[in-house]
């Protein structure tokens, strides 16, 4: 490696990635949907749409709505369930030859643990635990807004699997560093952030919410400053590697998150705008390294001046 050929590889929770760029859960299907538009073997990793124990139908439409420089979504975790995922989706995903991170979601600690156990198989390289979902055992309160629930969930998943466990944090909290520390203490190997910000928009002509689910998650460029701030704060609060995401559209957006403290970066909404975004970002990271005489991108993690 040299300045002319910068080293883009990074390590996250024992996973070696050829570069720091991966898809964000729920925005890239199971990879195959985008196979015609970009070379998936070039990616750092692929993160799947949320997998649940049983199939989920998802929310009533409309499920997406554009907002200024962003979008709201309320898909409702529609997926065919763990069995179909393992049988039909996973073999296709593995064929791309990059690490596969399965995003998992559940209604109870026990459901998460069973799912983690089921997915601890050849072909799944890590689990990303979506804690931004309601816990039916606690009146539907979101796991990820409470330290104790986050801790118990993380512990249970870690006990159920030998795979690296990445806990995906919700930004809809008063102090994200407190939740991040709870996940760290409970044994998480890495953290990813941010999930979508809870939002709502209204059709004023018809005087009703745009989304069938009333509220939805905000993503896209509009949320990027929030993501950068949260990655920055969490990187100073914990000793875990971070996967940053939120509104990344280009290499310089990805670098913002890396400089703020993210070891890897996930790209979500931008895939809808330009399917080849991730390839362009990977090229852009190499260009930046050459321009700034950086031999290895890992040098840049958390390197923002204070």
């Amino acid at each position: 490696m040299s300045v002319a050929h910068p080293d883009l590889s990074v390590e996250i929770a024992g996973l070696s990635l050829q570069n720091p760029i991966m898809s964000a859960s729920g925005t890239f299907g199971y990879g195959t949907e985008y196979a015609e538009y970009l070379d998936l073997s070039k990616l750092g990793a692929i993160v799947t749409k949320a997998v649940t124990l049983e199939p989920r139908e998802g929310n009533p439409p409309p499920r997406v709505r554009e907002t200024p420089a962003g979008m709201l979504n309320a898909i409702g975790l529609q997926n065919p369930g763990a069995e179909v995922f393992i049988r039909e989706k996973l073999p296709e995903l593995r064929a791309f030859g990059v690490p596969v991170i399965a995003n998992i979601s559940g209604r109870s600690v026990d459901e998460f643990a069973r799912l983690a156990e089921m997915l601890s198989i050849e072909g799944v390289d890590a689990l990303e635990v979506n804690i931004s979902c309601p816990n039916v055992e606690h009146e539907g309160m979101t796991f990820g807004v409470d330290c104790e629930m986050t801790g118990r969930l993380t512990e249970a998943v870690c006990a159920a699997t030998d795979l690296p466990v990445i806990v995906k944090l919700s930004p809809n909290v008063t102090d994200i560093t407190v939740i991040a520390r709870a996940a760290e203490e409970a044994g998480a190997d890495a953290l990813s952030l941010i999930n979508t910000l809870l939002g709502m928009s209204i059709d004023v002509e018809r005087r009703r919410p745009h989304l069938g689910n009333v509220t939805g998650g905000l993503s896209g460029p509009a949320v990027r400053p929030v993501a950068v701030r949260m990655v920055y704060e969490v990187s100073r609060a914990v000793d875990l590697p971070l996967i940053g995401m939120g509104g990344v559209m280009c290499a310089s957006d990805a670098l913002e998150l890396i400089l703020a403290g993210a070891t890897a970066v996930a790209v979500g909404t931008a895939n809808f705008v330009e399917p080849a975004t991730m390839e362009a970002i990977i090229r852009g990271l190499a260009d930046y390294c050459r321009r700034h005489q950086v031999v290895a991108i890992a040098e840049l993690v958390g390197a923002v001046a204070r």
Partner: protein
Amino acid sequence: MPRAHATLISRERVTEGHYLLTLDCAEVAQNARPGQFVHLRVGDGTDPLLRRPLSIMLSQPDRREVQILVRTVGRGTGIVATHDEGTRYDLLGPLGSGWSIPQGDEPVLLVAGGIGVAPLIFLADSTRMADPQPYVRAIFGGLTTESLVCWTEFAARCDEFIAVTEDGSTGETGLVTDVLAPELDRDPPVRVYACGPDGMLAAVARICAEAGVPCEVSMEQWMGCGVGACLGCAIPSSAGGYVRVCTEGPVFDATQIDWERLMSR
């Protein structure tokens, strides 16, 4: 690869708020099937952010041209309506399922409501090259004469043509569905093809089911990716759960849709 670059050759105002775009776009012109759409990026910036789905109204492979009919309803379509000749577009497409192509000289009936005419013009056009030629009847409805956008382009490609307006300013007075039932009765076609507002499509689907005539519908839903990845464009399926407008659709057999759940909002 279903992605292309296009150049705006001409933009013509058809009626108030409706524009006909002619694009130079060899990739789409060569590959498009009637009923498919393109997912068009309105600008390079982040507002508007997402692409906009637009039906292909006509495709002329020999001239590398594609025509798209746009109704200005919001920010994205409003911006497109101001674009000058020479504007470059980045688009994904042709995307989605298309209409089933009428076989032989069998009679078919096309039912269009307002801007829903666009994908049906492409279907009617494709039958004109066929030999033997299917016998194409059409019903085109709208609020007023102004809503019967591109009706001459549509009528020119059909063997029989009935216009219907709610205010009676052109053709018969009423809704397309008022004309549909008697038409099915008079001379049942082998298939009905329909595109328009959800309420119209639900009624068309019901009338066709009662008459025992197969029916295909082209559906709309707000989209994210356009390629099947985000599950944003889901509509209720009669098999339970949801189907994606961008990949399983936009054209569906009318029996695939759960109309009651669709219309419950």
